[in-house]
């Protein structure tokens, strides 16, 4: 469900790359990469970028781009912080205010993109400047604190309750729920397909797959549940999981999702098929700013204050995640799952390189190269069916362009 059927191979490729990277760092760091402290920290510190990547992949599938997410997140979060600290309204109404403000900003940008027809690059470049300025104007370029309840909700961990099992019990429960859900969904899908006479994979294939998935979930659960006291699976991770499932469903299974792909794949053909393309554009832009607002609030909860430099460069991290995750610059191609994996590749890279003592200068160089190479492999794959270094060299030597077989 999370993977588009056609793109599944591509995403397995990226998934493979992620696994290789994780294992490599696991060895290089003598096991700290997959220590519970590190994975908890990774989820806690990267959720906001991954949430941005979910919105960004939808924008990019529809053929647009959003450069304003960092500034929007910063502006929304400074308003949220001020509403709690200076105006003294309850923290939950500040969250609602933040979401509403995100929606309003998104509607503003969506209006210019969808109904006026200004390219999203320009609209959001303008937004990047405007909302950064508004952040500093409203916040007067100072740090503003936030309520402790707000921090507990958005930057907290699952509580320690129940009998002493040596593990965090709610995390164990969550893992159990995940396994049961996967099994139930898979079995029901199989039954449904069988009942209408569609082809199904043999039972042993399904069972093998379920055992594998369950194994991964068990391992992850134990990892998260064995964090040092007070830490366990973070709330932001739960939020991320909900968003991944919800938006994965939206993009792959709903008519709205189909319309987003249709608009990005061939706008005019979509229009002539009855897709209300302007509303699709409006939706993806508005949705992106709402998710930027969520990301901004997660960020200030974690740093316990809003400031003038919040969100700087976030748009680039999110865009990089989406393209490493297999999306096409021209639109029409990309998935939520792929983008999440792309974001994780970048996050694990930074995290692992840092752990082995690489400076942030080199980390940036390496991340840039990874982005370039990931997209280059994708481009070459598309051009000639299958990627091979030898083919690349041959073509390079002859100096010809590859042409499609007609």
């Amino acid at each position: 469900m999370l993977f588009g059927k056609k793109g599944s191979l591509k995403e397995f490729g990226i998934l493979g790359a992620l696994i290789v990277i994780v294992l490599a760092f696991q060895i290089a760091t003598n096991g700290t990469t997959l220590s519970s402290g590190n994975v908890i920290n990774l989820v806690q510190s990267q959720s906001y970028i991954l949430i941005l990547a979910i919105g960004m992949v939808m924008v990019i599938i529809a053929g647009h781009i959003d450069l304003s997410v960092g500034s929007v997140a910063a502006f929304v979060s400074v308003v949220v912080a001020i509403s709690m600290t200076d105006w003294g309204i309850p923290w939950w109404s500040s969250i609602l205010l933040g979401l509403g403000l995100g929606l309003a900003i998104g509607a503003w940008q969506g209006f210019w993109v969808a109904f006026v027809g200004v390219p999203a690059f320009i609209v959001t470049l303008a937004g990047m400047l405007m909302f950064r300025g508004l952040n500093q104007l409203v916040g007067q370029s100072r740090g503003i604190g936030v309520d402790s309840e707000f921090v507990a909700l958005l930057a907290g961990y699952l509580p320690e309750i129940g009998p002493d099992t040596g593990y965090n019990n709610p995390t164990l429960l969550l893992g159990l729920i995940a396994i049961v859900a996967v099994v139930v969904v898979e079995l029901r899908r199989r039954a449904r397909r069988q009942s209408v006479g569609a082809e199904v994979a043999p039972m042993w294939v399904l069972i093998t797959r379920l055992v594998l998935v369950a194994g991964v979930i068990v391992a992850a659960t134990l990892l998260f549940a064995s964090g040092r006291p007070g830490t366990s699976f973070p709330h932001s991770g739960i939020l991320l999981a909900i968003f991944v499932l919800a938006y994965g469903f939206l993009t792959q299974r709903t008519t709205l999702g189909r319309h987003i792909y249709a608009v990005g794949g061939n706008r005019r053909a979509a229009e002539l098929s009855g897709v209300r393309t302007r509303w699709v554009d409006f939706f993806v832009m508005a949705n992106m700013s709402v998710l930027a607002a969520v990301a901004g609030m997660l960020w200030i909860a974690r740093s316990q204050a809003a400031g003038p430099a919040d969100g700087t460069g976030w748009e680039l991290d999110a865009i990089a995640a989406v393209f490493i995750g297999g999306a096409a610059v021209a639109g029409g191609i990309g998935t939520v799952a792929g983008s999440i994996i792309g974001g994780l590749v970048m996050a694990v890279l930074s995290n692992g390189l840092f752990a082995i003592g690489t400076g942030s200068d080199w980390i940036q160089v390496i991340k840039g190269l990874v982005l370039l190479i990931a997209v280059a492999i994708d481009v070459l794959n598309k051009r000639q069916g299958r990627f091979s270094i030898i083919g690349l060299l041959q073509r390079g030597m002859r100096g010809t362009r590859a042409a499609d077989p007609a």
Partner: protein
Amino acid sequence: MADPVILEMRGITKEFPGVRALEDVSIEVRRGRIHAICGENGAGKSTLMKVLSGVYPHGTFDGEIVYQGEPVAFGRINDSERAGIVIIHQELALVPELSIAENIFLGNEPRKGIAIDWDAVHVRAAELLARVGLDEDPETPIKHIGVGKQQLVEIAKALEKDVKLLILDEPTAALNEADSQHLLDLIVGLKGKGVTSIMISHKLGEIEQVADAITIIRDGRVVETLDIEHGAVDEDRIIRGMVGRTLGHRFPERSGTAGDVFFEVRDWTVQHPLSAERLVAKGSSFTVRRGEIVGFAGLMGAGRTELAMSLFGRQYGTWLGGTIVKDGQEIRVRSVPEAIEHGIAYVSEDRKALGLNLLDTIKRSVVSAKLDKVSTAGVVDPIRELHAAEEYLRALRIKAPDVEQGVDTLSGGNQQKVVLSKWMFTDPDLLILDEPTRGIDVGAKSEIYQIIRQLADQGKGVILISSELPELLGLADRIYTIFEGRITGELPAAEADQEMLMRRMAPTKGD
């Protein structure tokens, strides 16, 4: 056997992963001839031309090419162009924003020192335009001239490169009859001046008219080469070679069971999107009966597509007036969703740009114009979707392993069947088919004709827009002619002939 051989390709074999596109193809072209290459889509014609012109470089295929008596090994297109072989592709390679002259000399600009010698450009461009019979200012931007004239610019560009062997891939596919004729005359004229041409075309009438030799390719192999010197060749002969069998009746029989008028357009008037003075439809009125195929004949630019698209949810120009009446009631069709809701479907003439999302699979394409039919509360049911798509795959005999196949990998004919499926899936009462067989090979064409007739026999109304008059005469029940946005005539197809239609499609002052 007077003319010497200019080109010989021997034993050409070209493989792509999993497919052998050409197998041991040998072909001999003599100087100063027009050599036609015929074959169904996917037969390997274009691949052969790409091998010849160096798009597929020497070494990526087996066999040898002997050009002007010497073996050649082209590593890229520039090599073959230097040798005087120029290929003009179906999709023209002109830059719309640049002028005619700039396009002709693009990449080959005459220089004075390091600067472009614009005087030389314009003088030589004017000469070249005169040679191809194009009466346009060389400074006119390409985007302001029609596709017929653009084709002439491509030939001028080839002449500028001192072409000896001109390869034309479907040169008249996008042209109307008059422009096609002009182009064919030009190619024949060039022949007199020593330019050899290889022409790929689906229009067998044209081949019959101009070709000196015809090579027929089927499934990557040469079936036969026919030399006109040894006797004339008729269309049926070519078709038999191409499809490997004799096609029965090319057009399905009319059932003659048209019902009552159910769709009527009254005084439809539409303004051109860019120029307020130009009307693309001027008070057009017409009717469609149930079970009837209504043809629309007109020259390119007469306003047939514009009329169709403006009816389909006002997708062209600015509506100025007129009503649509369906089943006795005036209906509101101001957007595509409203048009679909009222059972109107429009199959565009440009299948790749307007008809399909080439990133989609067959399955997703088939259901894309009426997703709600396989969805519940906005959620697509994958099983219902699969069944719907498989049903059309079978019914329309789309050649693909399964419905998960990407539409970009299909041949033109099969892509067109997918587009037809997509619109049949919307359960339309009226189908507007705009050039439904453009760029499709003969075998698939006759299948599409059958489908269209079946749709009419199911009681649907069909509007058929076509530039091929034999197609209109063979398939339609009744034909309207359009000239400059005005309906100039209405004829029962059984009583019409090409001449009668042409007179109404391009009325002269006396008429």
